[in-house]
């Protein structure tokens, strides 16, 4: 049996937490979805997660906040940011700070697959 890499999804939007895991599973990954950064940090999935798909704007701790927290904990998980704010200026900044990719919602399945693959290759 092929061991599927674990991709964790953190997004406060419920429809994303419903739809994105299904697509990722179709693409052949194991998926865990969390509604907030705090929930993810509290889980035991951090160590197994090979790729983190992270929403930028969330109530409470934001996506970049979580990224910093993981760096602080020396958890080098490749991160693909996703955001509904079509602000192009955030992308280069996030990539500079170590993100593998930043996808603007709505994004295609191909773009998602490429980003996750890139994340897994890097790890």
């Amino acid at each position, binding site marked *: 049996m092929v061991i599927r890499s674990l991709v964790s999804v953190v997004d406060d*939007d419920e*429809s*994303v937490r*419903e*739809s*994105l895991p*299904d*697509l990722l599973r*179709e*693409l052949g990954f194991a998926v865990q979805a969390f509604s907030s950064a705090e929930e993810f940090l509290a889980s035991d999935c951090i160590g197994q997660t090979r790729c983190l798909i992270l929403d930028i*704007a969330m109530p409470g701790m934001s996506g970049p906040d979580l990224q910093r927290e993981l760096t602080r904990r020396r958890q080098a998980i490749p991160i693909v940011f*996703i955001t*509904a*704010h*079509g*602000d192009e200026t955030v992308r280069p900044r996030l990539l500079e700070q170590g993100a593998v990719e930043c996808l*603007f*919602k*709505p*994004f*295609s*399945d191909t773009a*998602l697959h490429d980003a996750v693959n890139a994340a897994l290759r890097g790890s």
Partner: protein
Amino acid sequence: MDGRRSSGASSFRSDSLERTGMENELSDVVDALPGLVWTALPDGNIDFLNRGWWEYTGQSVAEAIGRGWQAAIHPNDLPELRACWRSMLASGGPGEMEARLRRFDGEYRWFVFRTNPLADVSGQIVKWYGISSDIEDQKRVEKASLERERRFDLILDGLPAHVHILTPVGKPEHVNRQYRDYVGATLEEQQRWETGHVFHPDDRPAALAAWWKSVETGQPYDFEGRRRRADGVYRWFNLRAFPLRDAEGRIVLWYSVHTDIEDRKRAEALLAGEKRLLEMVAGGHSISGILEVLCQLVESTASECHCSVVLVDPSGTRLEHGAAPSLPASFVTAIIGRPVSVDSGPCAMAVYRNERVIAADITSETRWAASAWCPMALAHGLQACWSTPISSTSGKVLGAFAIYYDEPRTPTPQHLALIDQITHIASIAIERAQSDAALRRSEAFLAETRRLSSTGGFSKRMATGEITWSEEVYRMFELDPAAPVTLEQILARIHPEDIPSFDEMLDRQQRGSDYEHEYRLLMPDRSVKYLHVVAHATRDQDGQLEYIAAVQDVTPRRRSEEALAKARAELARVARVSSLGAVTASIAHEVNQPLSGIITNASTCLRMLAADPPNVDGARETARRTIRDGNRASDVITRLRALFSKKHAAIEPMDLNEVAREVITLSRSELQRNRAILGRELADDLPLVTGDRVQLQQVILNLLLNAAEAMSGVDDRPRQLVIRTEREEDDRVRLTVQDAGVGFEPQDVERLFDAFYTTKSGGMGIGLSVSRSIIESHHGTLWATSNDGPGASFAFSIPWRPERVEGARNPGAVWMSAVTDAQHVRVP
């Protein structure tokens, strides 16, 4: 012997002397001689008298013989006659004497007594022969001639002129006393002078040329020139000379009369000077120039003096410089700026007391010691000062005119007359200068005012249709000021749309009442000007109707009003646009979220269907979720559309004071136009309120404009408008707009808020009815109350919610809460 002598009677009377025939014959001859004949012995005793003697004197021979004859001599003449006779006897030579001899009737007549001695061969005088002839008539003629001559001299000396009689070549022959006294020389001295000697060197050539011409042609001489007086002073004279001719027409002498015209010349010079001064005044010369000429005029009229004029400064407390052309600058400087008082000096005293101040001798002057004026004047060599106040026609003291002398002097009546004349002219000049200055100020002010307010004026005579424009109006119409104004020219400039109302105004003019009118000009370059006319109807002396009007170019005002209206219209849009700008990210986020779900679900669905075997249940589930997300996106769009269609409020926290200030800024010109005085009483401790900024602005604007309009007819009190904010006790904030307008009747209070209750013809307000519903949608109330004094107050109060404001720092988040929770605020 001359024939006029009295010959006496022809009768002969013999005395006791014996006669021979020869003696008788001789005696007859002696008796016949025309005279009184006598002989005397060497000792002087008379021994013979002819018949003439006793016939004349009435003395008998016996009475007259010896010394008896002396009784017939006038007692006053006798001593001299006797002395003369004695000396003649002693000298032994012939002689002649005059004396009055009494006639038989007692009348004395003048006689000349001529005597010759007769000597014998040894030279011894043996006899004296004498004859006395009557010279009374001759004496009388001589005396009369002397008398005439004396009277002539008296007359000449009495003439108020210098009289001069000259030889045909101009040498003086006779001069009268005035002439002598004036030149200070006797006739003999004058005869040694060169011709023209007494003339002023400047006048001498012309005087001589005229004289020689007269001598040559015999034409009367007439010349005006200065002649030197004995003391060296030159005075002006009119010299006239007329020739006296003999029977052959030859000139035998010249009569010359010199008249002193110095006073006339001075009067003429003064008059000419005054004329020049008045011309300068009329010509608008500078006051300093006029006063300088005035001083110089007096200095040339009253010689050896220095003149000055000081003026009173506008405050009336200090002396200012007027003119002092011949006084030392240091003296003038010392006078200027002195306070108007009795202590500051003669001029300050003259001004202070409005009376003449004479300091005839400054060396002994005791006044003005406090200001040490006298030592200062003496240091400048001045020893006399006469200062006279210069008063305006209304009696206000304008300054002082002063004459200074280098030696003690007291004014003569002529001086005082001159001073009074000069101060009168100075008064005219100064008053004129002051009123000119005032006029210039006021003209400059008016011109500046016109320029600043772009105002012109015109007049129109209705009877003739004649129109007169001021320069400004020509500028407004951009027409040539040289050309006369015609109605056609005006109509050609009027904006076509305003022609009907302009025609209406022309009709109104015919009725002769005051009017106000506004119209536009369409200029050749297609630009538009707005003109505002205020016209006043008046009647001239003949009762003809005439309009006097002010025209103001109100284009900038109209433009700014237009701009303001535009700005008001923009307000709502701009406010909304800025709200939109702030929430664009939220909109994108909210739309992208369901879109992302749709695409992800659709992708999953396709993959599930493409799997082998197809995951149909999974595909169905993802398709279902796709539909759900699609609906969700649709809901977002619906709410956005509702926002764009202005059906929703943009809710945000705001400072009501700030909102009020924005509205005040926006409506300031409108309030000024209504001449409303706006007072602000904005509370410091006002909490933030939550609501639709644009809507609240519109409510406040509405209240302000209503208030201004309510006061538009108020002219008997200030149009006071107050906008006030305050914090109410029950977590509410209140805003009040209070006016001093016409107010409202208590029974009308609710009607005010009826949707269709409005008295407004225009404006941009939204009406009280709409205002009230906006406030109610903010969970507040809007109400009206009558003031204690004049006017009404409109107020609204809305709740403030600290917890909502705290959590709503991000306008986008608040907006989103409005979009996603549409029930929160429902605004009609």
